[in-house]
C-alpha cells in the first residue's frame, strides 16, 4: 500500500534533523494559520500563487532561493563546525549524517539557490529591459516556477522522511547505484532534480523566445542591455545542457528502478559515461549561473559610474564566446581518470582559453569605472567586491586547468575553495547586487543602505576568512568531504574557517535585518520616480512597481542605453508626448495551472521515491487532467481598457512631474 514507506523512515534516533524539521514545520504551520486567520489567503491565491505576471513569478523565484539559501547555509555551518572539532575525534555528526549534509548542501546551493535566484532576476527584469509586456509564455512560466518549488519541497521532505543522498552533489555511480546506496536518498536527489529540471528547461525556452522574438520596436540586438545578452546566452545554455542532465538522471533511475546497466559495474555498464554526461551538463551549468551575474555587474557598474558600458560590443562577443567554449571544457573535471596526456592537454588549453573572454569582461568593467562618477551604493559594493574576489577564484581555476597541477590538487580543499570562490564571489555576489539594485523596481521602495553596506562587509570579510584557509589546507593535502582527520597541521585552518563562517553568518543576518528595517521604513524609502539610481535601461522607465502591463505605450528604442537617451532628450520628448493615444491592452489571465501541476508533480515525485505505484498513477492522471483542462479554456486573456491604462499612467506621470518641479524649485 505504501511501498517502501513505513515508520522506520523517520529518523527518531537522530535529533538534529528531527528538531530542525519540527521547527520548520511549526513555523510553516504558524505562517499558514496566520495567513488564513488574517484572511490573506484569497489575496495570496489571486495575486501571487496563480499569477502569470513575470514580475511576480520573478519575486517568488527569489523568495524560494532566499529560503533555500538559509537551509543550504545551515548545512554549511554544520560542516564547518564539524571539521573544526573533528580533529582526532568523531566530531558531533555521525558519518552517514555528515555525508547527507555535504550532498544536500551542494545540491541545494546550486539547484535551489543559485538557479532560482538568477532565473528570478531574469524573469523580473528582462521583459522590462526589452520593453515588452510579459514573457513569451506566461502560464508556462508559472508552471516552471512551481515545478522548481516542487523539487525544493522534496529535498526538504527528505530531512524528516527517509534520508538524502550520501553521494555528493552529482551522485556518481557506482556509489549511487542500488547495490551501494540501497536507501531512498539517491531517489530523493534524482526525482527532485528531474522535476525541477523540467521547470528550468521551461524557463529557459521561455526566456530565449522572449529575447529573440519579443523585443520592442527598435530594440536591435546591439541595443539590448548587457543583462539581456547574458540572459540569452545563459538560457541558450539551459536549453542545450539541461536535457543532458534529464537524460543522465533518467539513466541512473532506470538502473536503480528497473535493473538496467547504464552505469553499473556488471553486465558491461560504463561508469565513465556518467562522468562525461554529467559534466557535459555540469560545466555549462557553471556558466548558466555566472553569465547572468556578469550581466548584473555590467548594468550596475555602468549605472553607478554614470557612464555607458565600456566596450559594449566586445562584452557581447565575450559573452557569446563563453557560451560556446563552456561546452568544450567538461573533461577537465576528470583529468585524473586516465584519459591520457593528449586529451588532457586539449581540454586543459580549452579551459584556460575561457579565461580570456572573462578577462575581457573584467577590463571592460574597470574601464567603465575609469573616469566615471562612481557612487558606492550597496549594489556597486557587491560589484567591486566581486571583481576582486572573482579574479582570485578565476586564477586558481586556471591553476587547476593545468593537468599536472590538477593531479596534485583535485578533490582537495583547494578545489573546494576554488569553486566557492567563483560561485560565491561570482554568482552570489551578483545575485545580491541584483537584489539590491532591482528591489525598488519590484516593490516600490529602496533597501536600507546602512544595513546593506554592513551586510556586504561582513559577507565579504567572512568569505575571505572562511575560504582562504581552505586553499591552504588543500595545499597541505587535505581532501574534500572529510568527516574527521588526524593531521594536526590542518586544524588551525579549519578553526579559522569556522570563525569566518560565523562572520559570514553575521552578513546574512544583516541582510535579513536590512529587509525588516526597510519594510518598516518603506514610506521614507519610497521610490516615487521609478528611477532611484538614475538608471540607463528601460526597466527604469515605468513606475516602481510597474503596472501589470509594464508599459502604457510600446517603447520605441533609438540607441543603446534606451532610457538614458530618453532622459537626455526629455524636453523634446515632452513636446511630442501629448499626441499619443492610449489603447486597450490585452494581458494573459491568471491561471492555477502551474500550482496544480506542481501539486500533482509533488505527489508523483514522493510516490516514485517510495515506490507507491497507485499514487504515481493518480498523480500522473491528475497532471494529465490539468493539462486537458488548461487546453480547454476559452479565454486566456483579459482586456485592460484604454481609460484604465490612461488613469494609471497619468498618476505616474503626475508623480514624476511634481518631483521634477520640486527639484526645479530648489
Amino acid at each position, binding site marked *: 500500500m505504501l511501498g517502501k514507506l513505513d515508520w522506520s523512515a523517520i529518523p527518531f534516533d537522530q535529533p538534529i534533523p528531527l528538531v530542525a524539521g519540527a521547527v520548520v514545520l511549526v513555523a510553516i504551520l504558524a505562517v499558514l494559520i496566520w495567513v488564513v486567520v488574517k484572511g490573506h489567503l484569497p489575496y495570496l491565491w489571486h495575486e501571487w500563487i496563480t499569477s502569470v505576471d513575470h514580475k511576480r513569478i520573478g519575486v517568488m523565484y527569489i523568495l524560494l532561493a532566499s529560503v533555500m539559501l538559509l537551509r543550504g547555509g545551515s548545512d554549511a555551518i554544520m560542516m564547518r563546525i564539524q571539521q573544526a572539532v573533528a580533529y582526532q575525534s568523531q566530531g558531533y555528526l555521525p558519518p552517514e549524517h555528515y555525508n547527507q549534509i555535504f550532498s544536500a548542501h551542494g545540491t541545494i546551493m546550486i539547484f535551489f539557490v543559485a538557479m532560482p535566484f538568477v532565473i528570478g532576476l531574469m524573469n523580473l527584469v528582462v521583459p522590462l529591459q526589452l520593453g515588452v509586456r510579459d514573457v*513569451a509564455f506566461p502560464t508556462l512560466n508559472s508552471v516552471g516556477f512551481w515545478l522548481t518549488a516542487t523539487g525544493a519541497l522534496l529535498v526538504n521532505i527528505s530531512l524528516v522522511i527517509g534520508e538524502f543522498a550520501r553521494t555528493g552533489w552529482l551522485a556518481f555511480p557506482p556509489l549511487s547505484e542500488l547495490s551501494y546506496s540501497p536507501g531512498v536518498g539517491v531517489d530523493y536527489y534524482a526525482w527532485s532534480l528531474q522535476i525541477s529540471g523540467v521547470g528550468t528547461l521551461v524557463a529557459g525556452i521561455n526566456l530565449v523566445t522572449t529575447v529573440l522574438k519579443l523585443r520592442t520596436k527598435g530594440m536591435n540586438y546591439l541595443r539590448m542591455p548587457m543583462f539581456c545578452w547574458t540572459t540569452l546566452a545563459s538560457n541558450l545554455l539551459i*536549453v542545450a545542457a539541461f536535457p543532458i542532465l534529464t537524460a543522465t538522471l533518467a539513466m541512473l533511475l532506470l538502473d536503480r528502478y528497473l535493473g538496467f546497466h547504464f552505469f553499473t559495474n556488471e553486465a558491461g555498464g560504463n561508469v565513465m559515461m556518467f562522468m562525461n554526461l554529467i559534466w557535459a551538463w555540469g560545466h555549462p551549468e557553471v556558466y548558466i549561473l555566472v553569465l547572468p551575474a556578469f550581466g548584473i555587474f555590467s548594468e550596475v557598474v555602468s549605472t553607478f559610474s554614470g557612464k555607458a558600458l565600456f566596450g559594449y560590443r566586445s562584452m557581447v562577443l565575450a559573452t557569446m564566446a563563453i557560451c560556446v567554449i563552456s561546452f568544450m571544457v567538461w573533461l577537465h573535471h576528470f583529468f585524473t581518470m586516465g584519459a591520457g596526456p593528449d586529451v588532457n592537454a586539449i581540454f586543459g588549453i580549452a579551459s584556460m582559453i575561457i579565461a580570456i573572454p572573462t578577462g575581457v569582461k573584467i577590463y571592460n568593467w574597470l574601464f567603465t569605472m575609469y573616469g566615471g562618477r562612481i557612487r558606492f551604493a550597496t549594489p556597486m559594493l557587491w560589484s567591486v567586491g566581486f571583481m576582486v574576489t572573482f579574479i582570485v577564484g578565476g586564477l586558481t581555476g586556471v591553476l587547476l586547468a593545468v593537468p599536472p597541477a590538477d593531479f596534485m590538487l583535485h578533490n582537495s580543499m583547494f578545489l573546494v575553495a576554488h569553486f566557492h570562490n567563483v560561485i560565491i564571489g561570482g554568482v552570489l555576489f551578483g545575485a545580491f547586487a541584483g537584489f539590491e539594485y532591482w528591489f525598488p523596481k519590484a516593490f516600490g521602495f529602496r533597501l536600507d543602505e546602512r544595513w546593506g553596506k554592513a551586510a556586504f562587509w561582513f559577507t565579504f570579510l567572512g568569505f575571505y576568512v572562511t575560504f582562504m584557509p581552505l586553499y591552504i589546507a588543500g595545499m597541505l593535502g587535505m581532501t574534500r568531504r572529510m568527516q574527521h582527520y588526524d593531521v594536526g597541521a590542518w586544524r588551525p585552518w579549519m578553526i579559522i574557517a569556522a570563525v569566518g563562517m560565523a562572520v559570514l553568518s553575521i552578513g546574512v543576518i544583516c541582510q535579513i535585518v536590512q529587509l525588516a528595517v526597510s519594510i518598516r521604513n518603506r514610506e521614507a524609502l519610497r521610490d516615487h520616480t521609478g528611477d532611484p539610481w538614475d538608471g540607463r535601461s528601460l526597466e527604469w522607465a515605468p513606475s516602481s512597481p510597474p503596472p501589470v502591463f509594464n508599459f502604457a505605450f510600446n517603447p520605441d528604442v533609438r540607441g543603446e542605453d534606451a532610457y538614458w537617451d530618453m532622459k537626455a532628450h526629455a524636453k*523634446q520628448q515632452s513636446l511630442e508626448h501629448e499626441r499619443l493615444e492610449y489603447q486597450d491592452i490585452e494581458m494573459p489571465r491568471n491561471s492555477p495551472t502551474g500550482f496544480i501541476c506542481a501539486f500533482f508533480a509533488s505527489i508523483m515525485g514522493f510516490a516514485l521515491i517510495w515506490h507507491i505505484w497507485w499514487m504515481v498513477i493518480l498523480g500522473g492522471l491528475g497532471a494529465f487532467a490539468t493539462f486537458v483542462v488548461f487546453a480547454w479554456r476559452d479565454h486566456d486573456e483579459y482586456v485592460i481598457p484604454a481609460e484604465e491604462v490612461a488613469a494609471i499612467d497619468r498618476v505616474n506621470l503626475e508623480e514624476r512631474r511634481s518631483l521634477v518641479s520640486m527639484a526645479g524649485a530648489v
Partner: protein
Amino acid sequence: MAMIATAGHAHADPHHIGLVIEHPGPAPKRIVTAYGFWIFLLSDIVMFSCFFAAYAVLSGQTAGGPRGSEIFEPRNVAIETVCLLLSSFTCGMASIAADVRNRFWFYLGMAVTCVLGLIFLAIEFREFADLVARGYGPSRSAFLTAFFSLVGCHGLHVSAGVLWLLTMMAQVFAKGFRADILRRMTCFALFWHALDIIWVAVFSVVYLLGSGA
C-alpha cells in the same frame, strides 16, 4: 512616459555607418509559439542525442548476451519505418486541411496518422515483448539496456504524440479552427515530424548498423 527619442539621434553612433535596419517590434503570436516549440524540440533532440551516445558507447557491451544482428528483424523495422514516414505525410495533409479549415480532410488525415502511429507502436511493443520473453530484456546486458532505452524513449514520444493527436481532434471538434487551436496544431505537426527525423536516426544507427555488425 512617451518612448520617443529625438529624431536624428540614430546617427550619433559612430559604428552605425549606412543604413540601420530597425527591429520592427514583437513578433506575432503564431511565430512566437512555433519558435518556442522549435526550441523545445531542439532540447528534446539534445536529450535523444544522450541516449544515442549511450548506445554508441554500450552497443558492443553484450556481456555474453545477444548482439544486434542476432535479434533485429529487418522486415518488421521496415514496416515500422514505412508506417511512421507515411504518418508524417498524412499529418502534413491534416495540417493543410486545418489551414484551409476543412474539417473532413482534417479528421481523415489525423485519423490515418493515428492508426499508422498505433501500428508502429504495436510492432515495437511486440518486438520488445518478444525479446523480454526470450530472456533478452533490458537488464540482460548494457547493450540491451541502451537499445531498449533509446528505442523505448522514441516509442514513449510516439505514444505521447498519439495522445496529443487525439486531444487535438477533440479540440477541433469542440471548438473549431480557432487561432489558438491552430497554433497548437502547428506545434503538434512539428512534434510529429521531429519524431520522424529521430526515427530515421534510430533506424540508421541502431538497426542498419546493428544488423551489419
